[in-house]
């Protein structure tokens, strides 16, 4: 049985039967789809426990988003008169429209989370370090990764506006107003984003174009470079551990496995798992869609998308009222603090001077202090996000999630 399945697998994926390692290598490098893999990898690079496969999951989510997104482009009309109606049609009238939209929405949320977790994994394993390698420049990939995180957030944020409902309009209002508090050029940034002095058709078409062309293209280019760099940096950081061990005189021989079929199969597994998880969410959880967007009235409370909620919370905390005088926290909480945090995290790969042994291992003891400081900030960000998501109620007051006050209706 196993032999039979193996034959089927071979028939489908790799009909070529290499006679030696050279041929096996060429089989990979000459295949367009496989050429970004080395012919062989260490077994540890493919383990679950080291990378948690978060990068692959992010990439798979991105491809789900591209495919569902292209189909949605046939159905969505980026105009303030029709956008909302086209989403309603997706929900109620288009065949599998609800499923498509759910998959796109949940993949987008998942991708923000996956990319963020990927960043955490790379930090905690010291994977931006070069170890014993003289060739590797993994710091560059860390910086590229931070930019990719930013692009992912922008992609999600620009997509947030498109349904043109109250949730979309006011979440983006919160976001763009934070951008407006950048000193000197804040108004210009807002004007470039919104295409005017308020969120209207100009803003919608700008966000749409950014969302469907500009940002995905940018992400694809950066992603390709990100993958290419992994090869040029001599693979995942965990492989450095073998060089380190060898230098110490330990006779370790890494177990090498062929990229195809073993790595390919694992990628198929992760892709399928991600797809199944997104499908699970999409079958059982509805995507929110509120009343049509209206600048005439503000929902109470108006919240930013969840991944920017910590910024909104920061803005709220840093807004100080002394008597009748209000110091708006938009700049300090919305721009300065996140810029410092993001900037520090980005250049940290160049500052981190921990020993080479700390490369590619989880929580190396030499990096204890920086891991703790990093964790501290991560917990604050996650904590503020959860707090703003579940404990901030009407008038931005603090409520237990189950004791949310009843809000008035019209009739």
């Amino acid at each position, binding site marked *: 049985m196993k032999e039979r*399945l*193996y034959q089927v697998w071979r028939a489908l994926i790799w009909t070529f039967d*290499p*006679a*030696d*390692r*050279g041929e*096996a290598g060429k089989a990979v490098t000459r295949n367009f789809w496989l050429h970004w893999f080395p012919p062989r990898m260490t*077994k540890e690079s*493919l383990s679950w426990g080291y990378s948690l496969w978060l990068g692959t999951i992010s990439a798979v989510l991105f491809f789900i988003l591209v495919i569902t997104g292209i189909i949605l482009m046939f159905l969505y009309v980026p105009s303030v*008169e029709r956008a909302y*109606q086209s989403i*309603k*049609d997706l*929900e*109620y*009238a288009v*065949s*599998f429209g*609800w*499923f498509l939209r759910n998959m796109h929405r949940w993949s987008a949320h998942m991708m923000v989370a996956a990319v963020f977790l990927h960043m955490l994994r790379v930090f905690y394993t010291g994977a931006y370090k070069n170890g014993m390698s003289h060739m590797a420049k993994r710091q560059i990939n860390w910086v590229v990764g931070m930019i990719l995180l930013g692009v992912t957030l922008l992609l999600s944020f620009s997509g947030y506006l498109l349904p043109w409902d109250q949730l979309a309009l006011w979440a983006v209002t919160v976001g763009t107003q934070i951008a407006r508090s950048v000193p000197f050029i804040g108004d210009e940034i807002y004007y470039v984003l919104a295409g005017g002095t308020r969120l209207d058709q100009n803003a919608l078409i700008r966000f749409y174009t950014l969302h469907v062309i500009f940002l995905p293209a940018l992400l694809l280019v950066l992603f390709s470079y990100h993958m290419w760099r992994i090869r040029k940096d001599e693979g995942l950081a965990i492989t450095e551990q073998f060089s380190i061990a060898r230098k110490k005189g330990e006779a370790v021989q890494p*177990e*090498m*496995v*062929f990229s195809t079929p*073993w790595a390919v*199969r*694992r990628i*198929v*597994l992760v892709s*399928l*798992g991600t*797809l*199944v998880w997104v*499908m*699970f969410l*999409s*079958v059982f959880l509805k995507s929110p869609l*509120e*009343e*049509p967007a209206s600048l*005439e*009235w*503000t*929902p*109470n409370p108006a919240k930013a998308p969840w991944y920017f909620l910590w910024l909104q919370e920061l803005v709220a905390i840093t807004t100080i009222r002394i008597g009748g005088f209000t110091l708006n926290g938009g700049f300090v909480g919305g721009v300065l603090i996140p810029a410092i945090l993001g900037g520090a995290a980005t250049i940290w790969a160049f500052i981190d001077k921990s020993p080479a042994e700390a490369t590619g291992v989880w929580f190396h003891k030499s990096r204890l202090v920086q891991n703790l400081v990093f964790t501290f900030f991560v917990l604050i960000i996650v904590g503020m996000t959860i707090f703003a998501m579940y404990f901030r109620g009407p008038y931005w007051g603090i409520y237990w999630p189950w004791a949310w006050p*009843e*809000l*008035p*209706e*019209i*009739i």
Partner: protein
Amino acid sequence: MEQKPQKQALPDVKEDPFPYDSWIIYGLAVVGAFLLGLAIYKELNPEYIKYQREFKALVEKKFGKEAAASITFGVKQIWIPALNKTERCITCHMGYEWKGLEGEDVPKVFRTHPDIEGLIAKHPFNKFGCTTCHGGQGFATNVREAHVINEGGKKVRWLEPLLSSEKAKEYGFKDWQKSPLIEINCNTCHRFDDSLPGTPYINLAKRLVEEKACRTCHMINGEGGQIGPDLTYEGSKMPEMFDMRGTYYEIKDGKPVPSGRTVQEEIERRGLPLTVFSWHILHFEEPRSITPTSKMPNFGFTDEEKLALTMLVMSWKKVNLPAEYIPRPKKGEVIPQADTSKKAEGTVSADLVKRGEEIFKQKCTACHQIDKKLVGPALKGLFERRKEEWVFAMIMHPDSMVKNDPTAKKLLEEYKVPMAVPGGITEDETKAVIEYLKQATK
């Protein structure tokens, strides 16, 4: 010649380094197939299918197989681009246009739409759809979202909720079974008509607006005073614009005293739903119970009048109507205007007194009555107290009078609210009012 690299022994690729991977993939494939099946099942079995099958069975029972054959399954809709409406209500309410499904034996959801007083002939379905009158969410194809029903703590919010009879019952309408709340949507288009068949509440409210001279203080349709808020688009105000968490006041010895409850708690205490509608009911009952500084008098409205007036203000919505939807004005039913043709008349005639009375009712009665102290003093015996010139000056120039005239200053101290004549007044009109008052205040 290509140099062949030194041959290295090929490791045994058949030895699987990750022996469980394949099985996990098979497992995931099964789960994925199951979820896909579930998605297909959900797609093919929407909530409305149940109703469509029931309807088909009903038609077959009543009119035979042939009639039933014309019924197809799927989303049905009336699309009205002019109003930007897509009405999918008829996906379930399939019998709305059928003849012969009027009877009580037909379930309500399938019943033929009644044609009350030729209503449908004037408002054909393909031009007006469903939600124009009934409210609710026309896009939706499930009961909960189309009818905007909040259940189990799960909110469905929609700008134009369904104006159902159940809603009317909650507000205590005596005739709630007739869904009187729908009159709100009638008047959204018919706001300029004096009265309209089939809208008793709105007609009552419109009569009250004239009787109580609301325009004295309020701008309505761009016409009226500016003492109170402009009510032209009162119905478009969102719930967030009403402070439900403010203090509710009780009136003791003519003064508002905090009751210790919020407006929201008062609404809940009375068993009313927490809505803008309920806020208006409370506000019409006693404006100062919500805004203690309000100058609006307590008119002592009955329960029915409060409901009617609330419906009227809720109907004053901002809508963009295409020209062909604007109802024809009712000729011969124009709001009575002050007659200006007799301007030149100088002698004290019965006509002049009558005209004075009309103006008085329009512009003065909100604050002044002959026998009763209201916002302003009672006017009985006015000319025994004051000279005619004083009264004339007070009506014509109340602003400068309350600043300069000692008597007027004292009155302002006593009554707090400075006198103002809504919409201004001409010299001739003032003279007419004075002639009327000379007789009325004796």
